């Protein structure tokens, strides 16, 4: 009986509440177009996610959209990763200029390097 009560208390604890979010199933380079195969659903504690994270019911909005930033396998998908303005051939130059690196991990490493270099 006590165990049942404890289970009930734990299950009703708001800090244990979970939500389903969209995560990347593989590394994706900046400029890549996301497909349904590139994303999956995972459960995570509600307190760890904000409205910036893409939820499964909105997943269709990011499919066929281009990424502005590299994403690594397992990363939660954030709305801010995606282009907000209509991409033109001209502003695709931004990706070519900024997103150096042979793969997504190299692109993230490059971004880390930029952040590290500005440290005095």
């Amino acid at each position, binding site marked *: 009986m006590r165990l049942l009560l404890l289970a009930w208390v734990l299950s009703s604890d708001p800090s244990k509440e979970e939500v389903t979010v969209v995560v990347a199933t593989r590394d994706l380079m900046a400029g890549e177009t996301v497909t349904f195969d590139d994303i999956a659903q995972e459960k*995570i504690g509600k307190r760890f996610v904000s409205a910036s994270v893409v939820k499964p019911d909105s997943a269709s909005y990011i499919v066929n959209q281009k990424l502005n930033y590299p994403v690594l396998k397992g990363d939660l998908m954030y709305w*801010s990763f995606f282009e907000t303005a209509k991409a033109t051939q001209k502003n695709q130059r931004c990706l070519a200029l900024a997103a150096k690196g042979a793969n997504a991990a190299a692109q993230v490493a490059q971004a*880390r390097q*930029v952040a590290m270099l500005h*440290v005095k």
Partner: protein
Amino acid sequence: MKPVVLGALAGALAAVLIVGGLTVSYAAKRRAQARVGWNLKPILVMAADLEEGAVLTEQALAKRDVPEQFVHGSNVSPADAEKIVGVTTGAPLLAGDPVLWSAFITRPDQAKIDACVEAIRADTDAAGEEAVTRAIDAFAQNAGGPLPDAPPLPPLPDPKDGMVRVIVAKEALKDGVVLRAEQLSVRDFPAKFATRSLVYAGNTDAVVGARLAAAMEPGDPMMWQLLDDAAHPHSPGACMARAAEAVAEARKRQAAQGAAAFAQKEGAR
């Protein structure tokens, strides 16, 4: 008559005169107060029905006195009659209608608007394209030469009780902000979702002073790919934001110039 009686009579007379004067003055004041808003003021009204788009003639107008409280700035006063005679009406008017200035606002001619848009479209598009090229060139120049080779990302930290410690946004952060220490905090994050994109505790020095390339909500974990050099941005997001700003500004400027030139040309016809 005794002087005492005379004095009393004079005093009484003076009192009667003063009280009478005050009473007359008070009554006049009350009359004026009662008429406030009810004094008549002339306005122009329609003497005949007029269809929308018809030209207003002097014969179609009449003068009517109405209480001043019903007269406002929208009414055309008889003194301004000559300003509206010969003008096309923008709405149908019926005999007796007070004439309002708004009756002479003509609806925009959609055909003209379409012609204007068509006339300025090509130049506006071209101005936008040029602005994008210039903005990206400037961005590339400001970013400097090629970045030095980056070392591989460090391994993930060891979890403790299924959690790792990450740097998160303490408050809502707009894209483009240069991050300050007080805008950041460190918190647990499920190790199951730990990737090498996340900025883990101990890297605050690298985050403070960096420019955030994308907006974040409170509690969102910092990610390396969303950080940028504050003075010399490199990120695609920053580049695209610059390009978008430049194109919007250039298109707005060109469209305004084109529309003004179109209006001038139309006016000259």
